[in-house]
């Protein structure tokens, strides 16, 4: 047992963190709204070889384990980086599992040319909905029937990026139409299903790490605010109701961090049946929502002003939980893992 990050991880955290502190400052994050995309952030991360970091060196990556990617995800969350970092890292590993057919797009990520993302749900009536990063990705991996495919856009037609709660680059994509006609089958049948299931668990775990990074940053903003802000002649952080609320949140936040860390560790150990990714997404999502909500409300009226940073965190925390689906359905997915499927 060792709960320290490795030296490499500390270096990655430091490097990515320093870069994002500048490139993804609150001002830049605001400027990237409503689409949630800043090419310079992507380019900078690509220059650090982030997108394909989790791919073996033979395939052009760094051979990083998920625990390393989680460090990047955490920094991306802490700085609300306007780029689909988690999705690209997951897509890279998915493509690396099928290098013969996926090699071209993997190279796209290795070179950092632009994002490739994954669709969290199969298409419905030929349409992928609310694909994370889909608004800015050059290609999307999806499970289409019993085929795992990667589709690419020739133009931006047939891609709609709706304004949304998080100002995230979500998009609806019509498959099988002119604009998305570049389609490569990566795998079929059981292999396709297993590959997507594994990718979704990686997405859950890294998104959990992203949420923890986001929540830690928001919590820090909240704690600083209650120490600085005075009302009735005292810092509002001296009121017991404020203290107790923050103490509970600090506790769940520590728990969320451990759970996210353990989830990536379990996947790195090869435990494909682990229920930890689903646990981590549920708990870290809930925690991030509670933390950002409390931090916003502790600001009083200021929390609602667009000018204050806390609202940026508040909106993104909630949305990250929902992009996969109703959180209650995620609990039921977890129940399937833990207790087996529903009978009949």
């Amino acid at each position, binding site marked *: 047992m060792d709960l320290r990050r490795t030296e490499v991880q500390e270096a990655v955290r430091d490097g990515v963190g320093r870069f994002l502190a500048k490139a993804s400052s609150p001002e830049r994050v605001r400027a990237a709204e409503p689409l949630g995309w800043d090419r310079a952030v992507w380019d900078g991360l690509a220059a650090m070889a982030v997108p394909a970091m989790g791919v073996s060196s033979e395939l052009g990556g760094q051979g990083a384990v998920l625990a390393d990617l989680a460090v990047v995800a955490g920094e991306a969350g802490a700085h609300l980086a306007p780029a689909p970092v988690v999705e690209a890292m997951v897509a890279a590993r998915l493509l690396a599992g099928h290098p013969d057919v996926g090699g071209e797009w993997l190279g796209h990520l290795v070179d950092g040319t632009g994002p490739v993302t994954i669709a969290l749900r199969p298409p*419905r009536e030929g349409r992928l*909905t*609310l694909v994370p990063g889909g608004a800015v990705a050059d290609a999307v991996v999806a499970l289409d029937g019993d085929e795992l495919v990667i589709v690419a856009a020739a133009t931006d037609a047939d891609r*709609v990026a*709706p*304004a*949304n*709660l*998080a100002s*995230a680059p*979500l998009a*609806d994509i019509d498959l099988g139409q002119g604009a998305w006609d570049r389609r490569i089958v990566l795998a079929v049948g059981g292999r396709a299903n297993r590959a997507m299931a594994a990718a979704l668990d990686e997405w859950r775990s890294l998104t959990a790490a992203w949420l923890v990074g986001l929540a830690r940053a928001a919590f820090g903003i909240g704690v600083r605010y209650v120490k600085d802000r*005075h*009302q*009735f002649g005292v810092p509002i952080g001296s*009121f*017991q*109701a404020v203290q107790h609320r923050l103490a509970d949140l600090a506790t769940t936040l520590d728990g969320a961090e451990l759970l996210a860390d353990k989830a990536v560790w379990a996947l790195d150990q090869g435990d494909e049946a682990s229920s930890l990714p689903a646990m981590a997404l549920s708990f870290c999502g809930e925690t991030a*929502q509670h933390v950002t*909500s409390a931090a*916003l*409300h502790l600001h*009083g*009226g200021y*929390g*609602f*002003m*667009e*000018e204050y940073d806390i*609202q940026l965190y*508040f*909106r993104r925390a*909630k*949305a990250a*939980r*929902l*992009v*996969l*689906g*109703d*959180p*209650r*359905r995620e609990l039921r997915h977890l129940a399937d893992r833990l207790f087996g499927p529903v009978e009949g």
Partner: protein
Amino acid sequence: MDFSLPAEVEDFRAEVRTFLAEHVTAEVIERAHATGTFHDWGLHRKIAAKGWLAAGWPEEYGGQGRSPLEMNALSEEMYLSGAPVDGVGVAGLVAHTLLLAGTDWQKRTIVPRILSGDAMCCLGYSEPDAGSDVAACATRAVRDGDEWVVDGQKMFTTLAHEAHYVFLLTRTNLDVPKHKGLTMFVVPMDTAGIEVTPVHTVGGERTNITFYTDVRVEDRYRVGEVDGGWAVMMTALVFERNSAWYGECVRLLDHAVAWAGEGRDDRGRRIIDDPSVRERLARASIGNEVSNLLGWKAAWMASEGTLPGVEGTMAKLFTTEHYQRAADDLIDLCGPEGLRRHGEDGAAADGWIEAAYRHCQVTTIYGGTSEICRGIIAERGLGLPRAR
């Protein structure tokens, strides 16, 4: 016990509902949403023309002598309709306070302008360092002959960009305890030295910061005694705490029920048939009913001649906390489609749940934060010793 409303209240409610059904058009609602200004001059003047800005006043003062029950019905119907009535609320509050604490000149000159719907008001209480601790007000008013010179800054002066008067709390005395050195003014917004800067919020509402630099205010705009501003503000605050947001909670739930009834999941089953969706919708329904009852209890007490200070505070606390819990639950059950904003294709409930989720956050702040409300209930309602 009788929970039915008297016939005259139901009649009035029906009249209000008919009126709103005609005048609160989709266009009015869309415009308020788009601008973030929950005030519509056309609608406001029509409401004023009905005499409803002063509906609760005695007829001798130009009102309609309506009971607290009728007034609650009026407020409920306005919120249920989705009408942008922030302006109606503030106008009524300021006019009512002037009726109780203003001078004859103010009653003759300012009040009629407000009641006719020609003049709007905004509230100048909050400051950068005076939020919940509103008595920490630092905006100075210094007497200079028959005038006062005002310097300072006010936060969250919602509607200032539409208003003709600001109800302005100032500090006039530095030598006494902070509550005792405040004076209230009703200052024309076109007075030289007032500047309005827009503030945009996560809920989509526009509010403002107002700056006051060497603003010269004639003494006739003073409301109440010099150094008696706290009492004037307390008079006004009584009108602020109720379950007004109940109407918004109903609209929120209606949207969720409609969406869940129409939508289908991957297997073609209605969303509303999912057990945990049903549980959440049912739970939200209960919260709505309780919000409504707490509001009516306060109104009923007022109609019986009791000032429902604690009960109105309870209604405000419960309704707004419930509103946030409900919005949180109901956006969840929409899943990803709940993230799309109003106007986007495929948005769950046309994005109104997403909008409510952002908007509702502020309701536990203005008119007294939940923390302030809990303190009032604990000390005044339960008689607990002053908090430490």
